[in-house]
C-alpha cells in the first residue's frame, strides 16, 4: 500500500514509522524546516520538505499516482480540509483520513464531506464522559452519515422517568429509546418496558436533542 502523510508532528511521524515497519510505502510531508531536518535523519528519502497544501509539493510526493490513502494529519484544521479536498477531488485519491485538532471544527469537515475524521480531543472527552459518573449523558457512538448518535443515560430514583413505562414518556421528536440494561442484562426497550432507578438506557437521537432527552428521562 502507498500512503501519503501530510504533517510530520507527533501523530504523523508515529503513524509513518508504524506503517513503514508494517512494510508499507510511505511519503511524509513536513512544512517546518527544523522538524523536517530531524525527521530526515530517521526517514531519509521517505520525508519531503514543503507545504502539503501546495499542489506542486503534493505532486512531488506522488499524489498523482495516486496513493491508496492520504492522511491529512497536520496541526492545522484548515490545512487538513484543503489537503483532503485536493486529494479526493483533484487527484481521485480513493481514501482520505483527516485529523480534526479543534473539535469545534468538526462541523466544517462534515459539511465538506470529509470522512472519516479523527479527533483526539473528542476521543478523550468521550472516555472522560464514560469514566466520570456525574456526567449524566454519555456519548457512545456518532453515526455521522446518518446524523444520529447513540447515548447512554442512567436513571436514578429522582428521575421523572423512574417507574414509568416507555410508551407513557413524551419523547422529543427525533429520539427513541433502544434498550434497557438492568442487573447486567440488556433488553430491547418496548412500549411496556418500565424504567427503574439504576437502569442504563441506550437512546438514539439527532445531535442537539440531548437536553430535551435529559429533561424527559433525568430531571423534571
Amino acid at each position, binding site marked *: 500500500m502507498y500512503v501519503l502523510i501530510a504533517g510530520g508532528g507527533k501523530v504523523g511521524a508515529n503513524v509513518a514509522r508504524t506503517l513503514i515497519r508494517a512494510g508499507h510505502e510511505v511519503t511524509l510531508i513536513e512544512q517546518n524546516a527544523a522538524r523536517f531536518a530531524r525527521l530526515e535523519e530517521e526517514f531519509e528519502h521517505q520525508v519531503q520538505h514543503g507545504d502539503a497544501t501546495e499542489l*506542486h509539493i503534493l505532486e512531488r510526493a506522488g499524489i498523482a499516482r495516486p496513493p491508496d490513502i492520504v492522511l491529512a494529519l497536520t496541526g*492545522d484544521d484548515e490545512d487538513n480540509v484543503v489537503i483532503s479536498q485536493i486529494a479526493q477531488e*483533484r487527484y481521485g485519491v480513493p481514501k482520505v483520513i483527516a485529523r480534526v485538532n479543534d473539535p*469545534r471544527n468538526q462541523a466544517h469537515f462534515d*459539511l465538506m464531506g470529509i470522512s472519516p475524521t479523527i479527533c483526539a480531543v473528542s476521543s478523550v472527552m468521550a472516555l472522560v464522559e464514560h469514566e466520570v459518573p456525574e456526567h449524566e449523558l454519555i456519548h457512545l457512538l456518532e453515526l455521522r452519515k446518518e446524523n444520529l448518535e447513540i447515548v447512554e443515560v442512567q436513571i436514578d430514583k429522582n428521575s421523572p422517568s423512574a417507574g414509568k413505562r416507555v410508551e407513557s414518556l413524551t419523547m422529543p421528536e427525533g429520539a427513541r429509546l433502544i434498550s434497557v440494561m438492568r442487573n447486567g442484562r440488556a433488553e430491547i426497550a418496548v412500549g411496556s418496558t418500565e424504567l427503574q432507578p439504576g437502569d442504563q438506557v441506550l437512546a438514539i437521537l439527532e445531535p442537539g436533542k440531548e437536553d430535551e432527552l435529559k429533561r424527559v428521562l433525568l430531571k423534571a
Partner: protein
Amino acid sequence: MNALVIGCGRVGSSIARQLAEEGWDVSVVDENEESLARLGDRWPGRFVVGHGMDVEVLREAGIEEAEAVVVATDGDNTNIVIGQVAQKRFDISCVVVRVLDPARADFYAERGLRTVCPTKTAINVLTDAVRACEIPGMPRVEA
C-alpha cells in the same frame, strides 16, 4: 444591503471602508482587536473580535443576514474553508475569497468558489509593465 468582511488587515479593512462608503451595512470580523484602528475613527458598522472559523463568531457578526461575504484573512486555507462555510452552510451566493496561491485559487474556482488571486493580478500587471517599456528591439507580443 449587508456585507460581512472577514479579516481586517490592509486588504480587508480597505474593502470594508469602500463598501461602507458605497452604502453597504458592513460588519467586520478579525482575531485582533487592534485591527479596528484600520477602519478609521468613526467606523459605522459592526466589529466582532474572533476567528472566522468559529460559527458563533460568524453568527454574531450577522452572517445570517449578509448578502455578500468577503474573506480576506492572511491565510489561504483559512479563507478557503471560511468561504465554503459561508457558501454551503449559510447559503450565501456572493462569497468572494482571497487566495494568494494561484494553483489553489484555480482549483477552488473550478469548484464554484469565487476566488480572487492577487498574485495572478500582480504577475499580469508586472509583466504588462515590462512590455510597456518599449525598449528598442524588445520582443513584441500580439494582443
